[in-house]
């Protein structure tokens, strides 16, 4: 892949194929489907953070006029008991099954305990009130300290930690350690060592569309689901597994998805909707309220990170060591592994070790959130990097450049890096006019670097050539942020045809091959690869057809700029796509191809952000006044949607740094399950987000694509926090930097007698 190559479509900004439907209200999201016989399903949720379910009396609810089905956890098959016991209680499906609906214990405030289906939402709500659950309230644990305290109540009294030899039951689901070299040796070589402790609070992905689905079942066991998710194959596989149904009997039709950010890579409602539909013989629609979204779906939970970094006087890193505790919620399964793997990843550390603990607490089961685990780790490392640069009196970007990972660097997570754009990204920050722009009073500037792996995984695609020369592409990935456009661009580029002649459809589970979730920043990379493979197959078929028409060897025909040409001559005249398509029936039949692959050669991603803040000394309010995001995209297929990922991730990270947090009361109840009290950034909170796309092509992808969706949420927290330090001289190690917290620290610093 040469950089010189000129593209016709790659790198341009055409209108997305699904755009008009989405600006006219025609596009159908998860809650937009209806069937004539449809019932409404609603879920009863635990009012307690931790309670044994002694009995559930459903008779009165079932007797209510308009109620057609009532269910509890007893109605879901407990397929996994045996398997889970064998796996020490850690089997993922078992956790998933028990999260979808509690069996003997409710493990968090919001845990589903029963559900009903009725002819209207109101009747279903009334029926929930008639369900009588007898609870024995148990003592709960809400955070890492409490969970690890001696004699702490155990979320799962039968579980022992993975990765700790001979330990008894505890709230530690798992311990892991990674690294290389000997940190003690590295710290002995250091001239400066900084050791700090950081904490973050639970935050929600905050997608605007609540979880929603519609289930239809038949007497012969078939299931059709309309569902909004990051992967309809994921919905199919999880639902089928939890309910013990053959995959071929479950068809999932992907709705448009109104945001996910990792939070829609699992199921909550679908197995319940299917069960209610089976019980009632009617189709069942379920839509979470916003309160349910906050109480029962996806947050990423609290973390505590202790970190120690050593450096020589010349600014060369000698060692890093970190202990990371991540709350995984009621079932464990936090992203602490990725936290351990990413925390030291952007730099060359000769000696490095991170130890992670996955902690169970009585909070919702954590779900993936954009570069899961990495933003909290970056908060710790990049704040310390800032402080080290300050101590050494080296420019913070130069300091990072001195230590930046490059091709061949032994990564802190094990292997050696392939071609990466860490240095190029930092150089673009250093050279950006924002980095040297003057600042006013009470203002400060911070920078931070972030890393994410990106994912490959499995993708399938189909390409059908229509008789008029237009092309229909089938993808197995829900389009969460413009991927139809990037897939259409690559198709048009390969074939040498008009972008407008390509349409991309997100096909259902019966219509396209298995495809992993829209997650891990993988769609343009991996599904793009599958589509390119299928398109190249179509191009081969087109050349064969032309060869047949010309009665020459197929090897002599090649595809250029939308037409088949005979090598080495101008005769006969080239055959264009439209003509070959029109005559396909006469030359061998319709032309179409499929491809299915596990994508290899993922390009790892780096981003660096520059943030300016102004801190109001009277109120402690922090305003982000200028922001620039720089990122290596490998190659931006549709730059607008790459920028969009960078801008959206930056603002999510700003919210995480400044405002967002779950508030729990002493009983473990969520106190702010709504957008009024859980405040995400609004338009007036943020400035324009400038972007610089760096392109260090990924050699393993036909167009050089790396993933782009997750990296942008990694740098913002430390970028903001470092900027606040520059403005105030105060280092914040605990999120969020809400005005009250900031004001308290400002007052403390101003009080006489303070250093």
């Amino acid at each position, binding site marked *: 892949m040469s950089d010189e190559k000129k593209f016709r479509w790659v790198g341009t900004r055409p209108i997305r194929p699904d755009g008009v439907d989405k600006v006219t209200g025609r596009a159908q999201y998860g809650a937009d489907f209806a069937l004539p016989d449809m019932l409404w399903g609603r879920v009863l949720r635990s009012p307690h953070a931790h309670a044994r379910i002694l009995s559930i009396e459903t008779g009165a609810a079932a007797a209510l006029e308009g109620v057609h089905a009532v269910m509890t956890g007893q109605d879901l098959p407990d397929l996994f008991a045996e398997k889970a016991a064998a796996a020490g209680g850690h089997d993922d499906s078992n956790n998933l099954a028990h999260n979808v609906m509690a069996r003997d214990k409710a493990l968090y405030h919001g845990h589903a305990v029963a559900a009903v289906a009725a002819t209207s939402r109101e009747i279903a709500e009334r029926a929930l009130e008639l369900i009588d659950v007898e609870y024995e309230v148990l003592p709960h644990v809400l955070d890492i300290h409490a969970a690890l305290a001696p004699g702490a109540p155990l979320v799962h009294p039968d579980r022992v930690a993975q*990765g700790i*030899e001979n330990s008894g039951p505890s709230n530690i689901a798992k311990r*892991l*350690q*990674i*690294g*290389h070299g000997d940190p003690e040796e590295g710290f002995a070589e250091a001239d400066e060592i900084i050791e700090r402790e950081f904490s973050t609070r639970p935050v929600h*992905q905050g997608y605007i569309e609540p979880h929603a689905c519609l289930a239809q079942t038949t007497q012969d066991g078939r299931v059709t689901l309309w569902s909004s998710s990051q992967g309809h194959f994921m919905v199919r596989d999880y639902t089928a597994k939890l309910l013990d149904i053959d995959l071929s009997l479950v068809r999932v039709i992907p709705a448009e998805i109104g945001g996910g*950010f*990792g*939070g829609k*890579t699992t199921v909550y409602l679908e197995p319940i909707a299917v069960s209610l539909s089976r019980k009632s013989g009617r189709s069942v629609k379920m839509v979470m309220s916003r309160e349910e979204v906050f109480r029962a779906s996806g947050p990423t939970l609290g973390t505590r990170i202790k970190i120690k970094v050593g450096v020589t006087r010349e600014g060369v890193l000698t060692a890093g060591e970190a202990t990371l505790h991540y709350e995984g919620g009621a079932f464990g399964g936090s*992203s602490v*592994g*990725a936290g*351990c*793997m990413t925390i030291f990843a952007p730099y060359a550390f000769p000696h490095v070790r991170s130890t992670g603990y996955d902690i169970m607490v009585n909070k919702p089961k954590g779900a*993936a*959130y*954009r*570069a*899961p685990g990495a933003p909290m780790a970056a908060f710790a490392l990049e704040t310390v990097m800032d402080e080290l640069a300050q101590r050494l009196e080296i420019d913070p970007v130069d300091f990072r450049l001195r230590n930046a990972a490059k091709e061949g660097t032994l*990564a802190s*997570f*094990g*292997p*050696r*890096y*392939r071609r990466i754009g860490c240095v190029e990204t930092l150089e673009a920050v250093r050279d950006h006019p924002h980095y040297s722009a003057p600042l006013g009073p009470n203002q400060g500037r911070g920078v931070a670097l972030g890393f994410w*792996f*990106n*994912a*490959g*995984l499995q993708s399938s695609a189909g390409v059908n050539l229509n008789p008029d020369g237009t092309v229909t592409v089938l993808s197995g990935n829900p389009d969460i942020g413009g991927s139809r456009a990037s897939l259409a661009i690559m198709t048009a580029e390969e074939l040498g045809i008009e972008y407008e002649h390509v349409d991309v459809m997100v096909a259902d589970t019966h219509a396209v091959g298995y495809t992993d*979730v829209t*997650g*891990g*920043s*993988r769609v343009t990379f991996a599904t793009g690869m599958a589509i390119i493979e299928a398109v190249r197959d179509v191009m081969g078929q087109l050349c064969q057809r032309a060869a047949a028409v010309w009665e020459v060897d197929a090897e002599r025909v090649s595809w250029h700029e939308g037409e088949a040409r005979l090598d080495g001559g101008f005769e006969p005249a080239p055959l264009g796509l439209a003509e070959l398509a029109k005559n396909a029936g006469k030359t061998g039949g319709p032309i179409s191809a499929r491809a299915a692959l*596990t994508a*290899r*050669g*993922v390009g790892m991603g780096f981003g660096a952000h520059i943030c300016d803040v102004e801190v109001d000394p009277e109120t402690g309010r922090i305003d982000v006044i200028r922001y620039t995001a720089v990122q290596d995209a490998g190659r931006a297929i549709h730059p607008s949607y790459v920028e969009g990922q960078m801008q959206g991730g930056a603002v999510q990270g700003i919210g995480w740094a400044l405002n967002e947090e779950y508030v729990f009361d002493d009983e473990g109840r969520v106190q702010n399950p709504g957008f009024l009290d859980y405040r995400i950034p609004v338009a007036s909170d943020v400035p324009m987000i400038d972007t610089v796309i760096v392109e260090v092509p990924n050699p393993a992808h036909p167009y050089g694509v790396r993933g782009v*969706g*997750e990296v942008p949420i990694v740098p913002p927290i430390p970028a903001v926090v470092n900027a606040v330090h520059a403005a105030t001289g105060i280092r914040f190690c605990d999120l969020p930097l809400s005005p009250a917290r900031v004001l308290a620290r400002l007052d403390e610093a101003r009080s006489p007698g303070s250093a």
Partner: protein
Amino acid sequence: MARVILPQALADRFGGEVQLEIEGGNVRALLAALDARYPGIGQELEGRVAVAIDGEIHNDPLLEPVEEQSEVHFLPRLAGG
């Protein structure tokens, strides 16, 4: 012989060697060879960890080729958002 680097915790439980030279061919063969040397280790690794071969991470490898000069690391599996 491929160079295999084991996670410290696992090495501690199996023989203590962090770096070892193993005949590979592909991931399955490599795991079998590892297991022959340290009985039980194959089961610990197979299907539970990701494998990095020469810097590229594979989440669920089996027949992935391992070259003579390859460097192989075992890593925790990742989720994406």
